[in-house]
């Protein structure tokens, strides 16, 4: 068991943190940007929805299911051509963002779908009766009314992405998970591994905490006091653990 001194570890960990935040940050952004419309579309195209279209709904739903059930490491390999086309390379941080984001889009889309489905159909009807179109319904009802749930879904997605990003080390993207695997598993430098694990635990807890607080604040902003979102967090968390 070798001892690495702090002056050696510190720059290593700092760089790893930076890499993780970089990958997770960008891929989460893309996942939200892509998954939000996709999730809403899944609700709208469903039978009885505003844009009811069975074929489109089935196709999108099936795509989402396949992408979600794909193990991340396989997705990463399968997407290599696409990744090179986007980033010009298949290794490094930037190259890791592509499969991370693409893997997270359907994951987030399903969470969005669940959240948006919970919006009371009466509200949609009320806006239609006022003369609102589908876009109005999305902007003024579906998104704002499900915002607390959407925030929890985002939190769940970010936490899941931190998990996936550990595997991004296999394409030389670095990051905290990569350090834990390389030093802890391959070189038996357990001290460094445990420090990494501790950092990951703290980061994940902080993100979860911040996410929960935001969601709860948004929920309370509506003058409600019941602890309803707690249940939803639980649901989102179990939904997350199924695939993570």
């Amino acid at each position: 068991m070798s001892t690495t001194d702090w002056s050696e570890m510190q720059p290593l960990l700092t760089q790893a943190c930076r890499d993780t935040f970089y990958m997770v940050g960008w891929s989460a952004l893309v996942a939200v940007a892509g998954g939000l419309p996709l999730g809403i579309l899944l609700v709208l195209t469903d039978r009885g929805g505003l844009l009811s279209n069975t074929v489109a709904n089935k196709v999108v739903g099936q795509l989402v299911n396949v992408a979600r059930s794909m193990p991340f490491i396989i997705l990463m390999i399968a997407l290599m051509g696409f990744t090179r086309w986007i980033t010009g390379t298949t290794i490094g941080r930037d190259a890791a963002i592509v499969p991370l984001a693409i893997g997270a889009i359907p994951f987030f889309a399903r969470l969005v779908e669940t959240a948006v489905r919970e919006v009371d159909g009466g509200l949609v009807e009320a806006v239609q009766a006022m003369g609102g179109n589908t876009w109005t319904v999305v902007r003024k009802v579906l998104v704002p009314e499900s915002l607390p749930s959407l925030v929890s879904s985002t939190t769940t997605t970010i936490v899941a992405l931190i998990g996936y990003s550990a595997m991004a080390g296999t394409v030389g993207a670095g990051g905290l998970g990569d350090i834990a695997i390389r030093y802890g598993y391959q070189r038996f430098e357990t001290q460094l591994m445990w420090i990494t694990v501790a950092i990951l635990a703290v980061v994940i807890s902080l993100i979860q905490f911040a996410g929960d607080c935001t969601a709860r604040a948004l929920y309370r902003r509506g003058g409600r006091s019941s602890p309803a979102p707690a249940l939803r967090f639980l649901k989102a968390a179990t939904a997350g653990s199924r695939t993570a």
Partner: protein
Amino acid sequence: MHSRTGTPTPVHPTVTETPVITTSGLTKTYRAHRSHGPEVTALDGVDLHVREGEVFGVIGQSGAGKSSLIRCINLLERPTAGTVTVDGQDLTALVGRGRRASRALREARSRIGMVFQHFNLLSSRTVRDNVELPLEILGMSGRDRSRKALDLLDLVGLADKADAHPAQLSGGQKQRVGIARALAGDPKVLLSDEATSALDPETTRSILQLLRDLNRQLGLTVLLITHEMDVVKSICDSAALMERGRVVESGTVGELLATPGSALASALFPVGGEATGTDRTVVDVTFRGESATQPVVSRLARTYNIDISILGAAVDTVGGRQIGRMRIELPGRYEDNVVPVGFLREQGLQVDVVTEQDRQPVPVEEGAHK
């Protein structure tokens, strides 16, 4: 005073003879599961005529098709057949292709207010912002929106709750916000689907009073759907009774009360009393205004030298009018009383003979007492 049917006299100044909502042959069938499954006929050729400025109540049991009717009027539900005309515009002609509403239809909808049983307020918005929502859809600028929303909240007596969230309001207050919101587009017509059904009796009264006031002040035409007879009784100028997708009775309250055997009339204004024995004829006599049946009844007794017992009597206000009803009992079977019943009818009174079997008033046939 005893004007029989015919020209319906305006109940209050805002009612005119201009039709504001007209449906003709309105039919709606739903298909249960997918394309196979049995069809449900929710509306079966409904003809409805709502005059400008009146409060029109549609009453019927659950499942009668009331909600389908009101939702077809602003085309939230697309009718299977028939037409809907609101304020001179044929809305059924405006439906676009596919499921999406055309721009013209959406514009027409913005001029029709709608109030819901469960209020349907956005929990993410304050009361004021909820009222502003239709104005946002209409594209009104921020400052105008804010001013108008406050005016509307003032109108419904909730100006002090502008910055509260719906979750902080009582049911009655929520419905007031719903009404303020429905009025934002300056509608000529207000549709209300069981607006008071989620409220307690006290709150129901105050919300109905508000609707009545708005109807009077703004000349607003109100079409309301309810399963409670009291709602019709307290604010409606006209009413229709729905059963299994059909309108089975319809007219002004006055007309309905003057219609022999009208189920709506007897429900609006029930009068009890059991026959004291067999071989008796029980008759419901309806009169309007201040005139009393008392002299008529005593004259009847004197003229035909019969003993008349009064089983029950009531005077009530229905649709803003004084209505009296009396259930009297004449000795002998109906066949023996053809002449006295004819006498009552000659006095301009409405007479319904109550059969022994069901104790329900049945219409007196025109030719029954020849």
